[in-house]
């Protein structure tokens, strides 16, 4: 009995040692990959940070309105956020590569999905950034044009343009990420339709006086103002 137990234990120990000997090189490879990944990710972060500072990415994100969002969320500057994001993505990529070397069943498929998802994530982030930039640019252009044309409530007009562009961009971003595509499509349709309907109703009823004033200023007062001498600036 005793010998049998010892024999089983010995066999188990051998199995464990063989298993360990089988996995040890893979574990070492994984650790090497994780360490090398960390070093590469760190270098990538430093390089990217320098490049972003050189191209004044913070100012660009300020123009896009992204900097304000980050400040509200108590996050560091856009340059820092992007650099850190790239660091974690690169390192995580290496760590997952190392994990895949271990050959653990079930994880392989998930890791493959992650690498398949990465390009879409980057594209989505790019679309989001460019979208925010466009929203900021066009809303400011509308605001300036409205102020200089003496249109009533210029900020409302500007905000409406910004909101429409952001909603549109977010719907594209979610579609790109493949997150609840159908839900987002329906939500976007409902949201956009409601916004347009709301604007139409608001302009028709709530803004009746505003519309009247606007049209009067445009077509009645404009003539009167022209008659009151306004000098050529040049």
């Amino acid at each position: 009995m005793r010998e049998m137990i010892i024999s089983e234990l010995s066999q188990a120990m051998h199995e464990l040692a063989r298993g360990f000997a089988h996995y040890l090189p893979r574990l070492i490879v994984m650790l090497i990959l994780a360490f090398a990944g960390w070093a590469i990710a760190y270098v990538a972060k430093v390089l990217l940070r320098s490049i972003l500072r050189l191209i004044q990415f913070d100012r660009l994100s300020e123009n896009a309105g992204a900097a304000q969002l980050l400040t509200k969320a108590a996050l560091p500057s856009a340059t820092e956020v992007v650099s850190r994001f790239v660091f974690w993505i690169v390192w995580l990529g290496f760590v997952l590569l190392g994990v895949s070397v271990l050959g653990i069943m079930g994880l392989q498929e998930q890791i493959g999905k992650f690498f398949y998802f990465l390009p879409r994530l980057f594209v989505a982030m790019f679309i989001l950034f460019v979208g925010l930039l466009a929203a900021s640019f066009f809303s400011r252009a509308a605001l300036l044009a409205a102020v200089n044309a003496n249109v009533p409530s210029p900020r409302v007009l500007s905000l409406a343009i910004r909101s429409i562009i952001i909603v549109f961009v977010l719907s594209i971003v979610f579609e790109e990420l493949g997150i609840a595509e159908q839900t987002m499509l329906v939500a976007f349709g409902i949201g956009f339709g409601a916004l347009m309907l709301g604007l139409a109703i608001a302009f028709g009823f709530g803004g009746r006086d505003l519309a009247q004033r606007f049209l009067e200023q445009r077509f009645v007062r404009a003539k009167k103002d022209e008659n009151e001498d306004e000098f050529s600036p040049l």
Partner: protein
Amino acid sequence: MAEDSFLTDDLLRQLINVGEVDILVGLPTHNNAKTIGSIVQTIQSGILRWFPRERAVIINADGGSRDGTPELVTGASIDDVRRGSNPYALRTLHSISTKYANSPAAPVAFRTILAAAELLQAKACVVMSPESSSVEDEWISKLLRPVRNDGFDLVAPTYRRHKFEGLLITNLLYPVTRALYGVRLREPYAQEFGFSGRLGGEFLTQNVWDDGSPGDGIELRFTLAAITTQHRMCQCFLGQKDHVEQRGADLVPALRQTVGPLFSALEPDFPFWSAVSGSQPLPTLGPEHEVLLDLVRVNRKRLREMFATGVAELAAVFQSILSPDTLAELQRIALLEENDFEYPAELWVKTVYEFAASYHKSVISRDHIIQALAPLFRGRALAFITEHRNGSAEDVENSIEALCLEFERLKPYLLEIWKSRE
């Protein structure tokens, strides 16, 4: 002959037929049928009267007119003018019209005129506005003689204006040009001016045509180029300035045509203007300015309203452009009543300089910076009009002079913020 390829084959053929000339009159047009006939006749009359023995040509650079403007230029008969002025004129006066594009583009029109002048080896050139309803044949002489006889390279005009006309020039362009470039040039943005073939040829070779800077305001760039390359300049009093569409003039396009190119030129010209201190007067033929004091009604309430709305609604935009102190001061004066309204010279100078520095650094879109200046300029115009409602010509002139000195005094402030925002 560097600009040969820029000109169309048809224009080149016509220019070759003309041969060399002494005088070239450039006429950029776009749908100016209302005025162009009389202007061409005035030009012809001026040439026959004042330069009867010179070889002369009128070059009309048209931006795709659809009202028959080019036909009016080439069809204007010189015989009527000849009978009425100088029957002994010996030379032939050529009129050439060329369509450079289907839509107007001032730089292309001006480049066409300069290229033609270089090809024809014109000694003296003059550009005339196609809109001016008050042009006289004597203007041709006044703008060309200093070039022909006295060796000047640029002759800028001065005009008789109402005290509230051209406020963008008197309150911004003239003082800024004077303070930064050190030259007391009353009309830096001239629609009529004379220049030597030498200056025109040099400007053609400058890198201003494809540098991505604002298309309009090429006349201002030309004037600034004459200053920075230290060509001989003078001013000449022409008389009353009047435009056909004067009342419809819009502020934002005017700012784009003038302030945009001025701010844009400050970058390449930095080594020049940063080394200049004080300002020097220019030789002037005739009075430097004349002011009309007719009583006029101005909608001050609307100006104040647009200024106050602009300051309130564009606060977020101004935060990117102006310093906190300047913005706070603007927000304070935006609350003032119409009759108590004032926009102090120092505050206006700081506003303009901070806009120039922000334009240099492109803190936001450059066109947005120029547009954002419009409501503030309205505030400054309101303050000027309020201050000089009953003012004499001398009061107005003293006020402009004081503003110029303020711009000169605060020039170190511009240098400081220009560098600090690098």
